């Protein structure tokens, strides 16, 4: 083996060991690396209890209710399997929509109501002009009526 082959082998071996170490560390910290918990995870008891955490999912269609003061809102976060009601007082971000992604930080009460101190909108990876969005919405509606 020439010295340079040895050095390359060292570099390659070092990278492999490092990669393995990183994979193990990330695996161990898995639960600390998630930004939010889905309603299904919370229902299964995976979310920290008695502490603040984040809930993430979709805002259920037609679930947004505004209180008379204009600032307090209540909506349901769903991942289509399980759902949790969320109460929040404050200004909602621009992209907050029914049927779209949302991440709320706060505490889960005994009664199952999640009281949020911060609400963030989660954008999806789709970028499309309004006409295309309209077409997609129409298609969804058509699919729904067919099912019914």
């Amino acid at each position, binding site marked *: 083996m020439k010295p*340079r082959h040895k*050095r*390359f082998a*060292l*570099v390659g071996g*070092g*990278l492999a060991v*490092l*990669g393995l170490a*990183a994979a193990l560390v*990330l695996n161990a910290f*898995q639960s600390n*690396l*998630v*930004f*939010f*918990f*889905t309603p299904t995870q919370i229902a299964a008891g995976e979310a920290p209890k008695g502490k603040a955490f984040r809930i*993430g999912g979709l805002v259920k269609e037609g679930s947004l209710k505004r209180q008379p003061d204009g600032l307090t809102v209540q909506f349901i976060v769903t991942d289509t399997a399980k759902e949790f009601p969320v109460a929040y007082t404050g200004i*909602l*971000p*621009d*992209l*907050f*929509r029914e049927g*779209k992604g949302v*991440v709320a930080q706060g505490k889960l009460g005994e009664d199952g109501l999640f009281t949020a101190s*911060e*609400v*963030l*909108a*989660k*954008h*999806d*990876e*789709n*970028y*499309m*002009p*309004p*006409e*295309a*969005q*309209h077409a997609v919405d129409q298609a969804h509606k058509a699919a729904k009526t067919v099912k019914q």
Partner: protein
Amino acid sequence: MSNRLVNWFKFASPQTFYPLAGKLIPWFWALTAAFGLAGLYIGFFVAPTDAQQGEGYRIIFIHVPASWMSMFIYLVMAFWAALGLGFNTRLSGMMASALAPTGALMAFLSLWTGALWGKPMWGTWWVWDARLTSELILFFLYLGFIALQSAIDDPRRADKAGAVLALVGVVNIPIIYFSVKWWNTLHQGASVSLTKSPSMAQTMLWGMLLMALAFWMYSIAVSLTRVRAIILERERHAGWVEELGEIRS
């Protein structure tokens, strides 16, 4: 090696690489201008408004190319670092140091434009989710690489130390790229990837790809200019540098 093939190892010598880089730089600047103008034109005038985000989405024409570049430059830097450690070539270390400032710039642009987009869209400038945090670590890796290299006076030792740091940091790149897949993050998943068709309107995609090409050409042009300066600085006592017409005053 057969005689018909170009002997690439010839260009590993700073003496032959210096004039070659000098000849290539204007071409890369021309391509930067061409791709950049086309990309900006499509980005501002042709690409439609986004249905959800309105005009604010147009930041992706900078944000995505800068983020891609920040990760790719790091991979190239680590590649040169490995070659430098293995072959002990002088030019490899110089290439790695020439790439670092541009990589740092790209990582900074990615974080900054992301924050500007995040405030109106998400409702926050910054969150500690896996994607954002790992990109911030990438930015610090670049800064650390630059700081480490400038802290060591002997360029050969500086190259070696920098190379080890660059190689250690390379584990961060797949973490950044796959963070949105492996964990729940606030950052959305990839709109464009090798494995599935892009979830983006065609003209938006074209604008973004043209801007990405412009960023590539810019990074190459700037890095070649910087590597030429580093060659002159490090080889200033070599005979061929003293004979260069362009530096005699």
